[in-house]
């Protein structure tokens, strides 16, 4: 490693101000600090620092996403072979999925990081690690049949409009990965809804509807239709939990997502407060619908089933917990999470046009996060003022 360090030290002056490649300074710096934690020491304040940095934080999140990614790859293969009616060994299914998914991951990272590097260089900043996670989240919320150029355009939109116009990681008000998905959803709706996009190279005769779509169809269903829908995919709740259902690449397996959640909570990186309150909020709204029971959707889908359908769990664990776009106060996190879950189920059931409401609920609450924080902060201010009055 010493040779590598020497090599980097030798090349460094070329990239500094006045050097031949000064225009690539941020790029060089990004690779340099990726390979070596720099020799910077504390100049003021505490003389020792916690070992954690953003690279570590982000890499833990990426690790937490790996179970979902791997399962997603397997499920892509599984769904494909199921739809064409063939049986295949597990490895074949996985390799099939790998071949389908890898290009999307590569496109997301190349496009996103390319723009990040360019912006960092333009501003003379260091490249922020935030996109390491966004770049993984974006493929996981895409349908497997998403054309690569659409992924590229969505990613570019998310990084530029969702993040860089605000000043980069830490300054954005919405979750960039969700911005990518929302852009995709509204710009190319035919590629993100319907029955054909969720299963790779699906046989035409096979129904590729997601359980969520089936559930949405319940709203106007006659009792007979409702019965047939309920005995179909919607009755396979174990498959939904494990993830053997059609859906976006990484969102189907509640089990894999929960493994990720355990990693995030155990390391202290993800906020358990937000995750828990999202689930509580979703369950509460589901339970209210169960009580009302105004249509078959409300009546027949038990509250807990909302939590394992569609992107609910994925959103709760990986999207809602993005610390930049979420509320920052402890109390605010409970409110924010609860409302996300609550709204997601509300939109799902009440608006058949948006069966996947999780994305909208989170973006909506991202928007309101500063407001929630504002009231929590005012609460703190009031307590302080009250103390004076009690004394006086």
């Amino acid at each position, binding site marked *: 490693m010493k040779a590598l360090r020497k090599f980097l030290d030798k090349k460094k002056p070329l990239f500094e101000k006045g050097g031949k490649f000064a225009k690539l300074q941020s790029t060089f710096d990004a690779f340099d600090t990726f390979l070596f934690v720099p*020799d910077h020491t504390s100049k003021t304040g505490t003389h*020792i620092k916690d070992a954690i940095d953003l690279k570590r934080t982000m890499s833990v999140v990426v690790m937490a996403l790996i179970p979902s990614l791997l399962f997603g790859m397997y499920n892509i293969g599984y769904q494909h072979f199921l739809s064409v009616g063939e049986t295949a060994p597990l490895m074949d299914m996985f390799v099939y999925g790998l071949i389908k998914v890898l290009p999307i991951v590569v496109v997301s990272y190349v496009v996103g990081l390319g723009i990040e590097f360019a912006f960092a260089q333009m501003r003379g900043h260091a490249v922020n690690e935030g996109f390491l996670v966004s770049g993984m989240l974006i493929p996981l919320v895409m349908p497997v049949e998403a054309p690569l150029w659409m992924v590229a355009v969505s990613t570019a939109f998310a990084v530029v409009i969702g993040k860089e116009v605000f000043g980069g990681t*830490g300054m954005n008000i919405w979750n960039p990965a969700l911005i990518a998905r929302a852009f995709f959803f509204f710009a190319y709706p035919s590629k993100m809804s319907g029955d054909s996009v969720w299963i790779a190279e699906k046989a035409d005769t096979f129904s590729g509807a997601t359980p969520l779509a089936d559930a949405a169809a319940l709203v106007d269903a006659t009792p007979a239709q409702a019965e047939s829908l309920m005995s179909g995919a919607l009755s396979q709740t174990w498959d939904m939990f494990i993830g053997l259902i059609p859906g976006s690449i990484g969102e189907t397996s509640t089990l894999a997502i929960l493994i990720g959640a355990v990693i995030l909570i155990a390391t202290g990186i993800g906020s358990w407060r937000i995750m828990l309150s999202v689930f509580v909020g979703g369950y509460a709204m589901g339970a209210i619908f169960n009580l009302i029971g105004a249509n078959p959707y409300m009546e027949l889908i038990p509250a807990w089933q909302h939590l394992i359908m569609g992107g609910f769990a994925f959103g709760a664990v990986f999207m809602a917990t993005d*610390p930049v776009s979420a509320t920052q106060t402890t109390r605010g996190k409970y409110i924010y999470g609860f409302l996300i879950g609550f709204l997601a189920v509300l939109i799902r059931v009440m608006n058949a046009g948006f069966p996947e409401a999780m994305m909208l609920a989170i973006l909506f609450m991202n928007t309101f996060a500063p407001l929630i924080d504002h009231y929590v902060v005012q609460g703190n201010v009031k307590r302080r003022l009250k103390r004076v009055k009690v004394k006086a």
Partner: protein
Amino acid sequence: MSEVKKIKKGLDIKLIGKAEKVLEKADRSETYAIKPTDFPGLTPKLKVKVDAEVKAGSPLFFDKYSPEVNFASPVSGKVIAVNRGERRKILEVVVQADAEIQYEEFKKADPNGLSREEVKEELLKSGLWAFIRQRPYDVIAKPEDAPKAIFVSAFDSAPLAADVDFLLEGEAEAFQAGIDALAKLTDGKVHLNINPNLNQAKMFSEVKNATVNKFAGVHPAGNVGVQIHHIDPINKGEVAWVVRPQEVVFIGRLFQKGIYDVSRKVALCGSEVKTPCYFETITGASVRNILKGKLKDDEKIRVVSGNVLTGKHIPEDGFIGMYDSQITVIPEGDKFEFLGWAMPGLSKFSMSKSFFSWLTPNKEYRLDANLNGEHRAYVVSGEYEKVLPMDVLPVHLIKSILVEDIDQMEQLGIYEVAPEDFALCEFVCTSKIDVQDIVRQGIDLMIKEMS
């Protein structure tokens, strides 16, 4: 208040090199210095010139805006240097000590029999006033203020902190005399805060003229600012004074012996010290003789006057800070580490459990001064709250300081905090933000705007 207040939010950082409770002899230091930079917000005016002869207790400089506050020489001898920095800012006033210390003579008296004005005058004249600090702002107290209470924390919970009981062994009478003197300075109470788990000496638990409060738990349980917050928080317009236990003893000695005697024990600790232990020395002493032959010489080191969270980086022939009772020596750590962020990290300490060192919770660490990363914008939330046991929203307060919003700072509790209370926030910060500096900037701004 006999019930124990347990501080749960915070973090004990376990480091290698805690000082053994053994008092070792070191060669006497030849030079001593008082550093105006130890007193935030002070504008010093010199009273002596180079080559002047001084006694212990002779004023070296005073506060331009409170001329009655003097800063005294800790020893007798000759002023050999006034070291200045940029724009002729005074950094150190150095005194070469005589072989035997000559003391200025002050009045010997039982403080219980003196009036408030008499106690105040003695403290101001002798230079001991500099050891009385105030909250808000964490600066030297203003003699004209009437503090609502005076707080003394009788234990230190910082990493490798000196054991206060050991520091004050044999000083029970002087300590009580110091408390008696402090009790004269306020209409409110003198609060002495002890930790029941440390089995502290009777001079603390059975102190007269003061109220004993009990605090336990993790660092910063021993920070006086945290204790004030839980006993009697500071509101706008209120002032409380704080004094550290060794300095209470200095005050006691003044009234008992009539001299400015600021000799104290100091802990020499840290991973780079061969045998960490205590030394007898005098406030402001050069650390050269204390460190001589005591350090492991494997790599570049950093000498800190104070603890690793709030102390100051001093050179190996620098001087002990005015308020410090420990010298910590750690590795500098100005090295590159290959893929350091990706390693399992069994020897890396982190509040998060993202390094596998959490498997060994009782391990002691050898931490260096490396930042372990780079400066970033705020990304992670909820970190500071885990280590700040106050009803203060740390990140919002920091941000209000950064945008210089005075009203907001006031509303969010700038009067209640000192930089040292935010030291752990700075330690755990993923984005490596200089939190203590920012808090000090905020305080400086408040002082400027409110005066």
